[in-house]
């Protein structure tokens, strides 16, 4: 194994630079090191001015998504040794505005998340004194995979539709809407459908399925989007053929 590897890291400090540049750093390659360890090595030993987000280092907080050699990755779960002999190019996630260096702005996603109403909606709330809502393991399985999303933004970085049309609600937010729609305790699917079908962008998704392919947590946002389209189509036909029926 090579003893060192070159990282080409995208640098952008808006107060000093008008556009991003690449800076090269030579870092050791250790068997157990992930790309994030290499960035931490740079930050601690070579260049304290490099900015990036990270926290749990165990693939569950969703902070450290970046482009590694042009692919969106969680850098805490991407081994450096897989890129020997290098160089490795590390860039901020694609399709987002860059705040600085490897830090992207994700305010757009936060707004979209709010819009899909990702919480339990019920006509009537059962009092706590009556205990839990019963939910069999099969009913849990119906939405479980959509509940595994860590909001890492990797699917947005891979999504060709979001890249062209930032109005697109996007894979993770739709998967989260579907997480609640399919939860046996929820009664809000109609409300969410109305919100999602307001914008045409959902129809722009051509089912390329890039989002599902890149998801580090095996969520299937592409599947969620297709389910949604089907639901929306059914609703459209219903309203077209039976305009007098109560929806």
């Amino acid at each position, binding site marked *: 194994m090579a003893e060192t590897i070159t990282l080409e890291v995208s640098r952008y*400090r*808006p*107060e*000093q630079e008008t556009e991003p540049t690449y800076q090269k750093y030579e870092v050791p390659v250790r068997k*157990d090191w992930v790309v994030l360890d290499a960035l931490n090595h740079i*930050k*601690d*030993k070579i260049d*304290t*001015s*490099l*900015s*990036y*987000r*990270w*926290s*749990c*280092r*165990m*693939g*569950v*907080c*969703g*902070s450290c998504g970046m482009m590694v050699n042009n692919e969106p990755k969680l850098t805490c*779960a991407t081994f450096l040794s897989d890129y020997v002999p290098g160089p490795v190019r590390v860039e901020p996630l694609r399709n987002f505005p860059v*705040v*600085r*260096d490897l*830090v992207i*702005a*994700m305010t757009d996603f*936060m707004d979209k*998340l*709010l819009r899909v*109403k*990702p*919480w*339990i909606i019920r006509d009537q*709330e*059962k009092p*706590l004194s009556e*205990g*839990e*809502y*019963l*939910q*069999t*393991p099969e*009913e*849990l399985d119906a*939405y479980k995979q959509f*509940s*595994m999303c*860590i*909001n890492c933004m990797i699917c947005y970085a891979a999504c060709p539709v979001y890249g062209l049309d930032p109005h697109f609600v996007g894979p993770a937010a739709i998967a*989260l809407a579907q997480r*609640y729609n399919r*939860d046996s*305790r*929820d009664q809000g699917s109609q409300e969410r459908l109305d919100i999602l079908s307001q914008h045409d962008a959902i129809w722009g998704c051509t089912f390329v399925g890039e989002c599902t392919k890149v998801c580090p947590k095996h969520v299937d946002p592409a599947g969620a989007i297709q389910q949604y389209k089907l639901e929306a189509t059914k609703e459209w036909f219903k309203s077209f053929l039976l305009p007098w029926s109560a929806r």
Partner: protein
Amino acid sequence: MDVSSHDVLLVGGGGAGLRAAIAVAELNPKLSIAVVSKVYPMRSHTVSAEGGAAAVIKAGDTLDDHAYDTISGGDWLTDQDAVEAFVKEAPVEMLQLEHWGCPWSREPDGHIAVRPFGGMKKERTWFAADKTGFHMLHALFQTSLKYGAITRYDEWFVSRLLQDDGRVQGVVAIDLMSGRIQAITAKAVILCTGGCGRVFPFTTNANIKNGDGMALAYRAGAPLKDMEFVQYHPTGLPFTGILITEASRAEGGFLLNKDGYRYLQDYDLGKPQPKPVLRSMELGPRDRLSQAFVKEHEKGRTIQGPYGPVVHLDLRHLGEKVINTKLPFVRELCLKYENIDPIKELIPVRPVVHYMMGGVHTDINGATPLRGLFAAGEVACVSINGANRLGSNSLTELLVFGTRAGKSAAAFALEHEAPNGHVIAQAEDEKRRLEEQFLRKTAGRESIASLRTEMQKTMEESAGIYRTGARLAEAAATLRKLQERFQDVAMSDHSRTFNTELTAALELSFMLDVAEAIVQCALNRTESRGSHQRTDFPKRDDGAFLAHSLALQGKDGTPQVQYLPVTITRWPPAERVYGK
């Protein structure tokens, strides 16, 4: 200076902070609530909790059983009135989270499923597979989006509490995106910033766990309580410190030494049985299991790995189905980070710093001795965890005491006037400090990373699983020197936008204060109790130390330790017995 104002301000947006924010919103929708967090809420460290959350729900279990397990688990340093409130409110809080959509694992008939856990004599740990913290956090965060009264300050770093007339009235915070420094005032402030595992080199804690809230409160004059009690979790992966949940032992995993022997039987933890036995062997409390590891190492019976000694966690006999349904994250973590498949192979593990039993001193309602300042979750010490927390009590704690702190902060806010102008002058001072000492600083020779590494090394060598007075005294002196050297820290990044050199420096400064409190409390407590083991004072001494340590920051910056008696209600101090 820009100033924004709210009624109740939360510092931290993890489990405790979000639960408290929702409690305030539900109590009185007119109250304006701010959640100020240095990370987006769903990045908070609650996300990493795996095994589960304890609450009595099944027939055959009782609140008194849960209370007794918690009190004996904490080696009688727990406040029993707090524990009684905790066990009583735990089931209500857990059900509330169920109603908010948390995907709890279920029985075939649809009822909540529970699993055994270490130190608990009944099965009462609710779980969402082995990603319980992740699911709880996301359910809380997504639910919190419903409440229009909650304003979030995502990625705002709090550097100081504002205080006037003996009352905490807000914070100074840096908006990381723009670098803007501003005051956010409030009638009541709740600290929910979690623990400080990063003062040690080898920890399960995320990079953000730097004791921020502990140091903020300590600097403002609030006491830190029981800081010497540091929990080592017995099963962390070497190098990364990634946690392998206690649930893996609750489901039937064995701990083996180099000879394949279940060594816990040699440490007063019962006799090995093929199936897990509650409060016995691998289901003993974490302090005792981590101490057994050290003893086993001294006997030369651990395995030497590339990152020091390890023992083996054996899950192979559980079979693929149990591992995939009950412990899928354990398998994923082992495959990804150790290239090991627990279905077929042994997992190398060693004790790892996991949790702080100590924290900001609060009463049973989350109120600190400083008026207007509240705390909940790991940052606080109520205390229900005493000298050793039981696994699966902390997730429940952040719900129960998050709610309590939220309600009492809301009540306080309704009774008090809006902050006065004096605190704005303080905020101006703080802004000047941040600019002069950090952002515009050009001189300075010390590196943040080296100081941090030296602090972590000092802590591991002195305040680890076994401690001595000599080592601790030496560590206290070393930490003093590190504090002085920190004054000469080098700052090379002078930009405002997302300046993580600035946050790293401020976090190091928080950690140094907290580290000093840990070491001083450990030095002064000349007994052994729970997770605090002094080889020079190996016995528990109820005569002198059935009391909480309270560390206050002295004028010279060093911690001054006082004691506060433990509250005993119905369970007089006794011997801790496991495996019987």
